[in-house]
């Protein structure tokens, strides 16, 4: 038989997330309450105002198994942590570009090694600190990662345009950053920017791009 304490615990489990989201306004609270209640009913945890303790434990066990076996839904939830990694890597890369810090850039790439945007930033950083020999190496690395991404699906022209526009913004910012530093030689960055803009005009003009063929 269910004790009042246990009953209260279930109310706590199901509805407390709603109360904890104090930043949310009334509409969100109502929405989450409906979401939790409907979900609990569908998962047989709550029926006709009654909570089902045994099913609650089974559900928790199922979730634990899903976590271990990387079930699709659990992977989607774990990916919330991947978004945090993206944020962290972006922050590190931005700091690296501001402070000309190769170590920070390496840390960012370590967090997200298959993210072509970080290779782009690394290439521009190397161009800024006059390590020109390795700039193209990292632009090629970025191209390879994007090619891999395109192979799995997605519009090649659209994604290539995204990449080149991203490179254009990075180079423009780097040139501005370089201009205020007495020791910085922006010649190489300007040449790279002109090259990128030429490629972009080619794409904007509706011409076929060799990258996609």
């Amino acid at each position: 038989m269910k004790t009042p304490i246990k009953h209260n615990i279930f109310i706590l489990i199901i509805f407390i997330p709603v109360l904890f989201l104090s930043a949310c306004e009334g509409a969100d609270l109502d929405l989450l309450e409906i979401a939790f209640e409907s979900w609990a009913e569908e998962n047989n945890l709550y029926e006709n105002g009654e909570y089902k303790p045994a099913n609650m434990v089974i559900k928790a066990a199922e979730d634990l198994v899903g976590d271990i076996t990387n079930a699709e839904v659990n992977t989607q939830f774990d990916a919330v942590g991947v978004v945090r990694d993206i944020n962290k890597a972006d922050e590190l890369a931005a700091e690296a570009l501001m402070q000309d810090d190769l170590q920070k850039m390496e840390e960012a790439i370590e967090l997200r090694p298959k993210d072509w945007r970080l290779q782009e930033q690394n290439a521009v950083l190397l161009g800024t600190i006059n390590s020109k020999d390795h700039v193209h190496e990292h632009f090629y690395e970025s191209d390879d990662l994007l090619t891999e991404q395109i192979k799995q699906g997605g519009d090649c022209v659209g994604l290539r345009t995204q990449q080149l526009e991203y490179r254009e913004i990075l180079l423009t910012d780097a040139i501005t950053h370089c201009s205020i530093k007495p020791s910085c030689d922006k010649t190489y960055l300007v040449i790279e920017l002109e090259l990128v803009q030429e490629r972009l005009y080619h794409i904007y003009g509706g011409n076929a791009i060799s990258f996609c063929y």
Partner: protein
Amino acid sequence: MSDNTQIPAEPKKKRGRGCAACILIPLLTILCLVSAYFFGPQVAGWLGIFGKEAKEVYEAAPDLAASESLTQTFAELGIPGVRVYVIPIKDQPTQGAFIILDASAGYKGMNPLKANDDMFLLIMQDITERNRNENLRLAHVTIDYRDENGETATALTADQKLVEKYADGEISQREFFAQIEIDFMHTLEYLGIDGLLEEIQ
């Protein structure tokens, strides 16, 4: 004489084997358990028995145009503190949309302007429309509710097909929520009441 020499020799051998077994069996068991714990999921993942880790599945760079487009959904409705990340799914031609409703970045609910419209439905309809018109190739929509410290309070995920059914009016809001998934364990973890489950047992 020969009997006398054999008798003391035999128990010595038995003791040696027994002791070795006593040490080896628990040692091997512990070794197996440790290996299974650390390497089991990876090996099972390689063999296709388990799924891949999220870090691997969502390893590619976010689709910048798609992410910007879906972030615009919220900006156009006047909802601050929301960022959307659309990330390609490894070995699949689809992408996952992650909507971050972040109170630490100024999120104050889906209806900050107190409009009479059903904002949640409007958002789902807009996502569906953009997915169709811009070919975003969405497989799922995952919502991450973050508190004022930026910590995940709870998360929900829904298959894109389900989102479209709801957006197209084929199912009600209650039916939609009944079929989504809620991150049950992490929500409990956030609340610090995972120990309660043991108590209930």
